[in-house]
């Protein structure tokens, strides 16, 4: 177990460091790249959990597609260098409050209820996380959510077109 723990701690450290760097960097392009690194680190964590399929989907969709979209938006606006904005007046207090609530929830989960997180996990069944098992599970037990996903994606597509078309009309 110790090797796993060392790898986990190392990856956790990298994930945290990239997340903080993403927030701290002044240049939006750097922020985006730190987020990509963060996504990839999280993917390796999934890999450690024996979920290779999810890990690679994470890289393909989040790091490879959504972040490219972000990068385009940043380049599109020509807004790489973010000015130090004064921010909204109520932003700070609300952030602190939400952070405290989250920390409280973590504490409750970790220490409050004995035996929920502390117990040993069951050994994964044979073939767990394999693409075939993901496919079967998806079509056996999650068929309706899967089908709704396609409608959701369709709506997203229509929405994107409607929004960009209106923008184009206005700019003319």
């Amino acid at each position: 177990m110790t090797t796993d723990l060392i790898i986990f701690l190392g990856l956790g450290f990298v994930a945290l460091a990239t997340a903080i760097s993403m927030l701290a960097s002044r240049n939006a392009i750097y922020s985006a790249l730190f987020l990509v690194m963060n996504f990839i680190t999280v993917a390796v964590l999934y890999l450690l959990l024996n979920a290779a399929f999810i890990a690679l989907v994470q890289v393909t969709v989040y790091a490879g597609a959504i972040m490219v979209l972000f990068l385009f938006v940043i380049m599109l606006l020509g807004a790489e260098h973010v000015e130090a904005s004064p921010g909204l007046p109520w932003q700070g207090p609300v952030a602190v409050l939400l952070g405290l609530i989250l920390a409280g929830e973590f504490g409750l989960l970790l220490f409050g209820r004995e035996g929920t997180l502390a117990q040993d996990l069951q050994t994964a069944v044979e073939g767990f996380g394999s693409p075939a098992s993901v496919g079967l599970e998806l079509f056996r037990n999650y068929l309706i959510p899967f089908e709704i996903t396609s409608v959701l994606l369709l709506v997203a597509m229509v929405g994107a077109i409607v929004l960009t078309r209106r923008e184009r009309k206005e700019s003319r």
Partner: protein
Amino acid sequence: MDIPHLVEWTIESIVIVVGLIAGFAYLTLFERKILARIQVRIGPNRAGPWGLLQPVADGIKLIFKEELIPNRADKLLFVLAPVITVVPALIVLAVVPLGPDMMIFGHNVTLGIAGDVNVGVLYIMAVSSIAVYGIAIAGWSSSNKYALMGGLRATAQMISYELALGLAFVGPILLANSMNLMDIVNAQRGLLGWYIWLQPLGFIIFLLAGIAEVNRDPFDMPEAEQELTAGYHAEYSGMKFALMFMAEYDKMIAVSMIAATLFLGGFWGPFVEQIPLLGPVYLLIKTIFLLFVMIWMRATLVRFRYDRLMAFGWKVLLPLALVNVVVTAVIVLVGG
């Protein structure tokens, strides 16, 4: 992990990396020779017999060149971009099985790094989607209008053709019922078992999308010399330029090798079962053949205009790839 395993890994990793570097060097020579022949010229023939030392001479020259980093560039990302571009090109082949298991010095050796993982095809998708960043960063960090334009064009083109590429994978997966490349190769024993016969459209879509993904002619709009000077690597010189070039040529090798694995039976060929060492040789021959096809296309076809290039990707290849998936699914359902 025991010591023999580590030794095996080290040797195999170094052989693959050195192979890819040498492959890049000699692919440039191969390309120049073939282009010359097609244009009724001779091509490089001064450095060594048949110009065989030409890549070595080019390499030495590039190392001793002065490298410039433009004043306005983002220096850190400018230096990192070639590295970020090259690494995906090197590691994408990790999931391609290079030959059958064989005994070497009484030791069971698996050729290839991770040919037997159950998500091999998805790994290729993931790595090729990361490959976009090197080019986008190179274009952005140069702080040059041509480079930025080229980088943006290349990124938009790569993501557009990645869809057709991803959907072209679905055909072989449906036929083999596996994303494991070893399984896909093993399902294609014998010439008639090759998936190109069952997936001719899929093969063509894969090859075209692959060439577009590598930004090669006729899809080399991002590098169009006449209007963008060199696209995203306009400001790169010396060894950094060579690395950008290496990424492009190693991606060519990768696309060819993956196409050979998915559609042309991979390492299988006559007598491989008796002499397993023939496996990698067959794979290499198939790869070189596909590389020749790519160079031949470069010599024959002219560059697409950018709007037509995007239209071809979205309005021709993507719908065709979708149709291919549905038709394959129906045929497998009825036939199998």
